[in-house]
């Protein structure tokens, strides 16, 4: 039930520069090495031999991503995963892709320009529509005479007010005759002498003029047709450009496939750019590997490397424990729960991995809170339908559903009906107090286990004082046991004597003394900190235990909801009755099911994990292809 992350060993590998890429590729194929930077020998090994390779790799990868994002094609892995990629190969391909991207980029820019042109033309068409009803010679509106300059066009609404004031400085007048989507359709009039100044200003204000060719003056319909033709031309141009782009992408597809293969094979060595250090043809790297892979690593390196090398695998030292990555290995059934644990945090290398414990307690609590044979069966079978798209959801859903079915038999509940099946124990509604008490016992057990795990985690990393005297250590455990015992005595026997008082005060005194010694503040602040910490200890013990009352509350709530559905159904006719029962059950499964799932998670995270699990570990991230 309890496990710890996979045992790790530190690997130190020294080899000839010529073999570094082969070693990287070999280790990447094995997905066994979590590389780490070593800062201890910067003087001895000042070079980073993989950096030039990394730079070209980065440039090539970036160009490849940009182009392949436009291509819908899926690229395949190389057939031979042992092939080494030289720096020259990468550089050559990078050069090729640079040329290819410049071709693609030109087409993209032309497309952008066409889209912008279309947008402007559409606005001008709208402007023109406003003149349709007028019997007007349009050329008079856009004519520049000796003294007078008139212009019609559009300007972004955001710029209008400022432009109006600015134009007044140039003795120009502007009027808006129509407001479109984010643009004002305007007409301007002013002195021809100021034309140059105003022209510059209008460019800055993003003014788009409605240009009326001489031959179309006096004929708005013809002008609109002309603009529509321009729109059509732009659309055709975009289609042509799209076609050109897709032809281009088709032509370069083999080059992209080749690049994809090169990138896959080059990635491991490039990824080691900051890890590989060297001097005079010798390179060195460090990392963490699972201890059970030691022999295989040695064997593979012996088989693949050309020159002699030196490999050393050592157990992590105590001071290194925080930096060792955590590799969690679980069977397929626990994998989805591992993701939920990782949402909270990754266990430290020395910490207990709570995945299995979490899986059992989560499923158990879900069943306790949502015990119903019918609802459980719906959840389990519904989850099965998601198998292809969301396998993790299916596993959790099926297990939760089965747990729900199990507790459904215990409570004797089938789709909320309590008289069809004889309960193995009883329906929670028959004796709610007993159910609430059981929930408290479960909560106390849960918290005690959490406390024990916290003590174990402290001891493993050498924090003996904390394990013995802190609120989460042995003293905290004794305090909690004393609180449980005293509470029981008070409730059951109406007795709270000297023994109970001492049972509570002694661990409290130990915890407070420990806090006092740990605090580095002045006398007043120290006193305040110690008192508040102790108060927090008392409150969290009580509230943590009471928090588990929700396990009972939700099991009662489940029955109450079903009863509410039955009451409403009873008020309906035969058809309405069954529709209400159906909809009510769907409501219970979806809404209450989701709430119970979240509440279980909350109890695990806040009442369990926060007491023993730091979640500050580093995930094992192996070098891979």
């Amino acid at each position, binding site marked *: 039930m309890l496990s710890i992350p996979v045992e790790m060993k530190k690997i130190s590998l020294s080899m000839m520069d010529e073999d570094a890429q082969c070693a990287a590729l070999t280790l990447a194929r094995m997905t066994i090495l979590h590389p780490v930077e070593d800062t201890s020998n910067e003087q001895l090994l000042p070079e980073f031999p993989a950096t030039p390779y990394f730079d070209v790799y980065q*440039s090539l990868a*970036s*160009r490849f991503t*940009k182009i392949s994002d436009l291509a819908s094609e899926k690229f395949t892995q190389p057939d031979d995963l042992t092939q080494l990629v030289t720096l020259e190969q990468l550089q050559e391909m990078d050069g090729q892709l*640079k040329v290819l*991207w*410049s071709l693609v*980029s030109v087409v*993209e*820019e032309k497309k*952008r320009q066409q889209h912008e042109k279309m947008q402007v033309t559409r606005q001008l068409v709208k402007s023109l529509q406003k003149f349709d009803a007028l019997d007007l010679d349009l050329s008079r509106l856009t004519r520049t005479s000796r003294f007078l300059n008139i212009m019609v066009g559009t300007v972004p609404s*955001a710029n209008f007010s*400022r*432009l109006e*004031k*600015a*134009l*007044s*400085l*140039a003795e*120009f007048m502007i009027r808006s005759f129509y407001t479109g989507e984010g643009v004002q359709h305007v007409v301007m009039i002013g002195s021809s002498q100021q034309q140059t*100044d*105003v022209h*510059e*200003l209008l*460019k*800055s*204000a*993003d003014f788009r003029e409605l240009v009326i060719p001489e031959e179309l003056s006096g004929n708005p319909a013809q002008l609109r047709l002309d603009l529509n033709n321009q729109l059509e031309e732009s659309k055709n141009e975009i289609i042509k450009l799209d076609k050109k782009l897709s032809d281009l992408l088709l032509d370069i597809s083999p080059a992209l496939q080749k690049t994809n293969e090169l990138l896959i094979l080059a990635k491991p060595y490039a990824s080691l750019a900051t890890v590989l250090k060297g001097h005079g043809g010798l390179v060195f790297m460090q990392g963490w590997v699972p201890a059970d892979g030691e022999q295989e690593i040695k064997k593979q390196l012996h088989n693949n490397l050309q020159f002699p090398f030196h490999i050393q695998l050592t157990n992590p030292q105590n001071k290194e424990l925080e930096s060792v990555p955590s590799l969690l290995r679980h069977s397929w059934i626990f994998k989805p729960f591992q993701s939920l644990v990782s949402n909270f945090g990754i266990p430290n290398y020395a910490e207990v991995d709570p995945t299995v414990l979490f899986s059992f307690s989560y499923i158990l609590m879900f069943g306790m809170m949502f015990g119903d044979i019918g609802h459980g069966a719906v959840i389990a079978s519904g989850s099965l339908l998601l198998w292809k798209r969301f396998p993790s959801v299916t596993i959790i859903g099926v297990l939760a559903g089965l747990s729900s079915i199990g507790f459904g038999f215990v409570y004797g509940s089938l789709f909320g009906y309590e008289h069809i099946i004889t309960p193995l124990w009883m329906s929670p509604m028959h004796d709610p107090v007993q159910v609430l008490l059981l929930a408290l016992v479960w909560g106390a057990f849960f918290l005690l286990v959490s406390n024990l795990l916290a003590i174990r985690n402290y001891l493993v990393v050498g924090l003996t004082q904390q394990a013995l005297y802190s609120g989460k250590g042995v003293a905290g455990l004794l305090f909690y046991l004393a609180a449980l015992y005293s509470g029981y005595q008070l409730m059951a026997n109406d007795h709270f004597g000297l023994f109970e008082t001492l049972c509570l005060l002694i661990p409290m005194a130990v915890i407070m003394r420990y806090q006092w010694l740990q605090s580095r503040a002045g006398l007043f602040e120290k006193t305040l900190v110690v008192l508040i910490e102790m108060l927090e200890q008392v409150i969290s013990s009580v509230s943590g235990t009471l928090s588990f009352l929700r396990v009972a509350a939700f099991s009662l709530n489940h029955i109450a909801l079903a009863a509410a559905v039955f009451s409403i159904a009873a008020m309906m006719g035969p058809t309405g009755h069954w529709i209400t029962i159906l909809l009510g059950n769907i409501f219970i499964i979806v809404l209450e099911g989701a709430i119970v799932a979240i509440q279980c998670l909350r109890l695990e995270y806040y009442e369990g994990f926060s007491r023993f699990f730091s979640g500050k570990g580093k995930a094992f991230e192996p070098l891979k292809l």
Partner: protein
Amino acid sequence: MSGFTSAYLSTRLSIFSNRLIDFDFLTKLFDLDLEQILTHIATLTGHHYSLDSKDSSSIENQLANNAFNDFQLLIRPFSGRERRFFFYAIRWFELVNLKVLIRGKFSNTEIYIIRQQLIDLGDFAELPLKKLLDTEDTHEMLRLLETTAYAGIVRQARQVYEEHGNDLFLLDATIDRSFFIHLKQRLQALDNQDITQVSQVMGVLLDRFNLLWLLRYRFSYHLSPAKSYYLLTASGRTLHSANLMRLAKMDSVDEVLSALPESLQKKLSGLNTICEIETALEYSTLAIASKALSKTNLVSRFFAYIILREAETKFLQALIKGKQLKFDDELIRQAVVGFK
């Protein structure tokens, strides 16, 4: 905001404000060596900085990151319109990255040089810096930028690029102008009381921008009055639209200075060059922001804090970088002349 939250925020603001380094003290740091400067900063601000010999931008990023962490703490209690306003205000820092990118690409600067000048904004970052750095030319970068939250600003930058080529000063002005217009729009969405209080501080910022750029447009770039006025940003505290229109028509710096409203005229009397005017206005902005820190309105206090913290960060970045690169003390002093 509840009374409890206001009390919390007010306390936080007081604590952070007390950690701001006094500007008179800042100028004394010029005479110290790098280690001494870092020790002083640690003592005064509680933030410890470490030098990275391999990465000269490391300290700049540490300074900016500490500022962002503090902003994040202060922004948390706000919600809705205030939150949106502050998130936008803090984008001011990202504009530095935007300008570095645009300038760098327009002038074909090497990518590693551009990268060194960029600041890591952590959670506040909107720009996809890596993708932008990977762009091969200006057009590709602008296309990518148009897909970000800065699309509006970038469209105007494109216009300047197409109209004026690589005029970097004009580009900076265009970006700043657009930022202030949008910031003022967000300010208008706040409660009336907040608008009045924040406007006191923001107005000075806008006046500074408008006056400086009016002088530059008219007398350095020789633009027409109409275009000069159009390129200014939203109206500020003293210089309203009508003032600016009147000033835009004037023919010399002296004429503009003598036609300024009295309060501004007093501050700028005896100054001749645009550089001197810039220094005086910057100092005046910081003085007004410092005063706003002691007022009761939380929105206005936080806004003032952002301005002061940005100025402090900029100062320390310039000072430390100058010392790291072993520049002459006088040169460093000139680089941060706004704080003289």
